[in-house]
């Protein structure tokens, strides 16, 4: 039996197990929307296509599955580009379907035509223009396969209107044949052995884990190896949740994991940065030595031999030259190292490690992460700490970009993978709210909170109505400092306090705005209001936007000025 392109589209999605599409219609894609009534798939209608892309991304990060979005040609397609680039930088599996003008019109500057394949070439893992309906099923199959295997990433499929209107026999290919695509997932045995030799003899090891640990679900293996070797662990922003920052003590209180260093880099903890600068073996796991992490490259981990596991060979020795490169899946590599560790455990590892862990403990006590909540005015860090205190362990936190993001990274102690969704690589303001909606769509019963800035939230605030319509009870906690805070902080430190274009003294009344959207609006202006307001928000089954009036000139510390060694931190 012959099926139309639009029907094939849904058959393929069914085969891929897609449950939700985030989308926005238009002329070029109308046949697919027309066909949707015949399929039991959930469609979430967004208010801006950037929102659709971030929602698919949030869904993917929270679940580990491929996120899907569907938009029309031209402006619909270009509106997704920021979302695609965001997903690309953070290796998020996503398939973006864009409508396209009919094939005979392609290249003629037709109405709502844009070369989206050309535009997104540098920010997708791969992309396709489907020119014949006979290729459609194969291309969709390949797109999903590429999105989720190897180093995951967004794949775009451009669908000309005539292609989805024409018909062919539907056959879903059983296997994917791509001659040029064979990601290496099995690590090289010899390199694993070399890594083990180095780890075994290290006096001052540091584990430095990135988003790869979360993507490959290697968190248990990481914890196991770190505890066996008694090696302290730091993670990147993307790696938060890959190692339990806190554990319960015998009294049932949550305390910092003794091996946890906190995040490293520009806004990393004193102890994490000092540990990296003084370690003798740095074990990088699914992390890519981003410049926000390394500071001045030439001064990064100067005393260390470096081992690096990454599934993407281009990440290895790109920024920092490594001594032992291991191309492969983090989980597999850590499993093999754990096996070796089981076979020949290091004798009296506790004793050997004592001086190093003692040094780290001293660093932690000399300069802990700290702020002072005074009587007047709410400190933003205090809000984040309260959120951590009151939120369930499996709560999902998204952030916007700026100080709000860094305070969340510092003061929310993540214990589980896939509970922090944040735009790490691209730093996209406007990411948090739609990502929260995507995650909430996947997990309707979990608490999902977007920690936002008053600047960022206004970049995709229109998606509040999407949350309301679809009964997705996300909570938005706006740390309202009346500034584009992070940029103001740079102006304060490096541009002689010239606060040009960073003061947001005119903002909407967020409480009324929430109300206008049909959500719940709450406000806290005094420290003692923070907790009750959060409790009220968390117990509400509707979307809530909370306006926290925080101290306007609070800064994020520690801070490593750009271009400095990461041990050269400004501490207040």
């Amino acid at each position, binding site marked *: 039996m012959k099926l139309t392109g639009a029907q094939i589209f849904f058959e393929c999605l069914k085969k891929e197990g897609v449950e939700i599409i985030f989308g926005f219609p238009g002329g070029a894609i109308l046949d697919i929307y027309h066909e949707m009534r015949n399929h039991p798939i959930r469609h979430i209608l967004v208010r801006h296509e950037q929102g659709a892309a971030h929602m698919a991304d949030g869904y993917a990060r929270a679940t580990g599955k491929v996120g899907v979005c569907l938009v029309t040609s031209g402006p619909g397609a270009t509106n997704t580009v920021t979302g695609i680039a965001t997903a690309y930088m953070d290796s998020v599996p996503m398939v973006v379907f864009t409508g396209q003008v009919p094939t005979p019109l392609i290249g003629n500057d037709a109405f709502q035509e844009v070369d989206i394949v*050309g535009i997104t070439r540098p920010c997708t893992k791969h992309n396709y223009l489907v020119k014949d309906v006979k290729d459609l099923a194969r291309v969709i199959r390949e797109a999903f396969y590429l999105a989720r295997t190897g180093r995951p990433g967004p794949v775009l499929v451009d669908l000309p209107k005539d292609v989805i209107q024409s018909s062919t026999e539907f056959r879903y290919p059983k296997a994917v044949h791509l001659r*040029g695509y064979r990601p290496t997932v099995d690590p090289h045995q010899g390199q694993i052995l070399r890594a083990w030799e180095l780890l075994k003899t290290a006096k001052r090891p540091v584990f430095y884990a990135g988003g790869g640990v979360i993507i490959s679900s290697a968190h248990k293996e990481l914890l196991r190896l770190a505890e066996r070797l008694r090696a302290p662990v730091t993670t990147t922003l993307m790696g938060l949740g890959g190692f339990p920052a806190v554990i319960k003590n015998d009294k049932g209180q949550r305390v910092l994991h003794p091996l946890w260093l906190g995040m490293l880099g520009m806004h990393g903890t004193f102890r994490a940065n000092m540990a990296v600068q003084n370690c003798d073996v740095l074990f990088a796991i699914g992390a890519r030595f981003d410049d926000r992490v390394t500071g001045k490259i030439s001064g990064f981990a100067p005393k260390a031999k470096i081992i690096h596991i990454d599934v993407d060979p281009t990440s290895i020795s790109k920024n920092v030259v490594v001594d032992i490169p291991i191309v492969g899946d983090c989980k597999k590599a850590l499993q093999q190292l754990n096996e070796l560790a089981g076979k020949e455990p290091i004798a009296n590892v506790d004793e050997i490690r004592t001086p190093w862990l003692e040094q780290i403990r001293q660093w932690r006590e000399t300069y802990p992460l700290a702020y002072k909540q005074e009587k007047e005015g709410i400190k933003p860090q205090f809000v984040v700490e309260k959120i951590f205190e009151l939120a369930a362990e499996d709560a999902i936190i998204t952030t916007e970009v700026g100080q709000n993001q860094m305070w969340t990274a510092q003061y929310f102690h993540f214990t589980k993978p896939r509970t922090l969704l944040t735009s790490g690589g691209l730093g996209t303001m406007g990411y948090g709210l739609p990502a929260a909606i995507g995650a909430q769509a996947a997990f309707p019963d979990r608490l999902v909170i977007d920690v936002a800035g008053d600047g960022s939230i206004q970049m995709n605030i229109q998606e509040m109505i999407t949350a309301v319509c679809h009964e997705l009870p996300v909570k938005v906690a706006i740390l309202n400092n009346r500034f584009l805070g992070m940029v103001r902080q740079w102006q304060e430190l490096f541009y002689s306090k010239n606060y040009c274009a960073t003061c947001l003294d005119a903002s909407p009344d967020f409480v009324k705005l929430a109300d206008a959207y049909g959500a719940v609006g709450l406000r806290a202006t005094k420290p003692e209001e923070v907790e009750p307001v959060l409790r009220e928000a968390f117990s509400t089954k509707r979307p809530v936007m909370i306006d926290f009036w925080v101290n306007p000139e609070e800064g994020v510390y520690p801070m490593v000025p750009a271009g400095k060694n990461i041990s050269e931190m400004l501490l207040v």
Partner: protein
Amino acid sequence: MRHTIGVLVENQPGVLSRVAGLFSGRGFNIESLTVAETNEPGLSRITLVTMGDQHILEQIIKQLNKLINVIKVYDFRDTEFVEREMALIKVRAEQHTRAEVLRIVDIFRAKVVDVSPHFYTIEVTGDDGKIQAILELLGQIGVVEVARTGKAALARAKKH
């Protein structure tokens, strides 16, 4: 340093721009680039010449390997290889210079492929040095236009 790289790719729309985009996106220059189909249906070979230190070259090769449509990358750094380029050179050829032009053509084993009252067009094949040399000599007589193909390269076959 100058490097020659061979890239075997699937012959599909957009592949060349993906390869070229890798270079432009990183601010690297491509000095020359040739593409054409190979003996195997559906596959094309790109030969490109670029500049950069070892570190940059390492990245370029890894990034090329990462492209989905790239089947194989030939890094000619540690293999012996042959490379050739073809150039078409239109040179002024008046009564008193024709003999000299023909002599040069002969020495370089080039060919005259078009003749008109005032110009000869010459086809020459060779490595970089040879093409530079003939261009220099003909330049003294009067080169009007040049079209060069850019290099094509293949690894040398094993002798045993």
